[in-house]
């Protein structure tokens, strides 16, 4: 078109190139900045905060909810949500723990069958995936809101957990090494849960950004009807992301029972909101179509760093609640401001 228009175009495109190549999204930057600022400030206030061991500590704490958060990210990008993950963590944790040699419980219902650790883990993951699959099927078949569907399964699965365990904890006597490794071990000095988390992030990032199924996930969240009319398998993709999330929640449950050396009925309670907080702080839009796995990685670390700092400074429970809430509000506000600036 006209030469002025072309000029305009160059002006706009020039600064974008560098960032575009790094594939950095503006949404990530806002939360990334929050994280960096937090680390700098906290490091200045308390040198203990900056130690490597403290960093590993934070990573270890966020790893479990982080694994759920990255799976949740994909679900949210499709325009959905999953409130049932906390219950899935509990049920899979209990089922897997009960199948591992050495586990004991006072409840008769708990399985007397014992399997080798890898097999028990597989069964556990399958249970998690199955819950996710059921979520996906309910949502795609009945077309009811994911919020309500997964609220239903959240309550239902909680019931299964109570029935299965009879309300008794499952403990180990002793815990097999293979199982202990999952939650308490380390690889090259890095705690195993952190390794799992890193792998989950890498795989899901690749899947969402580099594979056609990831593209479909974004398209479905951005415009489900257009995605369908482009031949994408909307329902199947949705079922896939819920199943994947169920599986990841199951993995989190397994790691948690290993770390806690027992399974009980309260583990996992409230994880859904912690994971969703991380995703949202990381800049993923709850309306679907926009967001990123890396953003959620940053998001869960923001939450973890704050919690860690509050612990280091000895803040009381009440202050922890207030501060965590305020930081969540602050982070999403900054993100909101960043997005608004970009639009106008």
């Amino acid at each position, binding site marked *: 078109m006209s030469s002025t228009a072309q000029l305009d175009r160059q002006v706009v495109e020039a600064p974008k190139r560098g960032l575009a190549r790094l594939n950095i999204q503006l949404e990530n930057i806002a939360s990334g900045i929050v994280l960096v600022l937090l680390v700098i400030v906290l490091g200045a206030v308390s040198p203990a905060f900056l130690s490597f061991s403290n960093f590993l500590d934070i990573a270890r704490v966020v790893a479990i909810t982080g694994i759920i958060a990255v799976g949740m990210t994909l679900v949210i990008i499709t325009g959905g949500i999953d409130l049932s993950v906390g219950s899935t963590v509990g049920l899979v944790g209990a089922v897997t723990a009960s199948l591992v040699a050495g586990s004991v419980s006072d409840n008769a219902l708990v399985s007397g069958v014992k399997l080798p650790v890898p097999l028990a883990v597989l069964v556990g993951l399958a249970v998690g995936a199955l819950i996710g699959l059921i979520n996906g099927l309910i949502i795609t078949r009945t077309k009811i809101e994911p919020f309500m569907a997964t609220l239903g399964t959240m309550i239902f699965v909680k019931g299964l957990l109570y029935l299965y365990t009879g309300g008794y904890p499952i*403990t180990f006597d002793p815990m097999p090494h293979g199982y202990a490794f999952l939650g*308490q071990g380390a690889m090259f000095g890095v705690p195993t849960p952190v390794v799992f988390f890193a792998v989950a992030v890498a795989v899901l990032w690749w899947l969402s950004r580099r594979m056609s199924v990831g593209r479909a996930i974004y398209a479905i969240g951005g415009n489900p009807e257009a995605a369908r009319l482009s031949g994408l398998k909307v329902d199947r993709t949705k079922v896939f992301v819920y199943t994947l999330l169920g599986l990841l929640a199951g993995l989190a449950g397994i790691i948690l029972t290993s770390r806690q*050396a027992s399974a*009980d009925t309260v583990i996992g309670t409230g994880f859904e909101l912690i994971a969703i907080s991380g995703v949202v702080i990381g800049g993923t839009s709850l309306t679907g179509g926009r967001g990123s796995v890396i953003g959620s990685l940053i998001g869960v670390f923001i939450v973890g760093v704050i919690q860690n700092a509050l*612990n280091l*400074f000895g803040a009381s429970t009440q202050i922890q609640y207030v501060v965590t809430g305020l930081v969540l509000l602050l982070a999403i506000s900054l993100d909101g401001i960043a997005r608004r600036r970009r639009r106008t």
Partner: protein
Amino acid sequence: AVGACSSGSKSGSGSGDKIGWSVAYFDHPVYQLMMKGAKEEAAKLGVEVIFADGKNDPAVQTQQLNNFLAQKLDGIILTPAVSDPMIPAIKKVNQAKVPFAVVDRRMETKGSGIKWDFLVSWDMVKSGTVGGEQIVKALNGKGKIAVVEGTAGAGSTVDRGGAFYKVIAANPGIEVVYKADGNFTRSGGQQVTEAILQRFPKGQLDAIYYMADEMLFGGIQAIKNAGRRDDLKIVSCDGDKNALDMLRKGEIDYDGIFFPQDEGVIGTRLMTQLLKGEKPDFANQEHEGRKAALEEHEGMVWVKPDFFGVDPSNMNDPQFVGW
């Protein structure tokens, strides 16, 4: 003489009586065991006990007591998650003149005039006192400690805590540097312990006191993961077999034991006697040879099963294997 029954007992119909029991929550080994004891005793006595899961929410328990009244059950037992919020609901139970008892976590009337026919609750005060003494012994009277408390407002937390802190106060060498609510749960215990370990690096903390074994189970994992077992003394309470095994293996330093099923058995037995119109034999309650004391609390009957401190000197005693 100890306080009289607040309600006229029903005609001695005997068996077939129904007792409603609202339990603080089901998913805790203490309460599982307590319910087990109650069920067995009920079967023996030919009464029916209906348990309701209080879900750790006084609003839910209030609703349950009201439902028991609506169902016209013969007797009601309450194990309150927290005490004070249950006062209005108990008032209603009293108005309906239904035989009523409190088991495990004790209540206070707070001047409200509420009544219970009897209270069965093991010696929480003693457990706190013993715990405090164990800490003092473990630290030789000097050091910094953190306390993982039970659910705020639960009778057990208030009494055990009160007694514990009283002992600590009498030992000025010991300083409580941190306390937090672990809600009597495993994950609560683990979370609080993680926070404690982050807050107090090696050298800044000498012992942790857990107000219940469930919280210890969560916490011990955090301690092991952080590699901090060796620089910390660990004291807990309750008598879970796993905890006592840990004591025997040297993984913790002190524990104590009470027997939850005794509360279930005695509570059911006394209530049944009441419903049958018999005069309950408060003074001579025992289960499996363990005698319960009879005391008075706010002018009403308190049947009190005992608590025993466990340490390396008596941990191999067969009666302290744990439950």
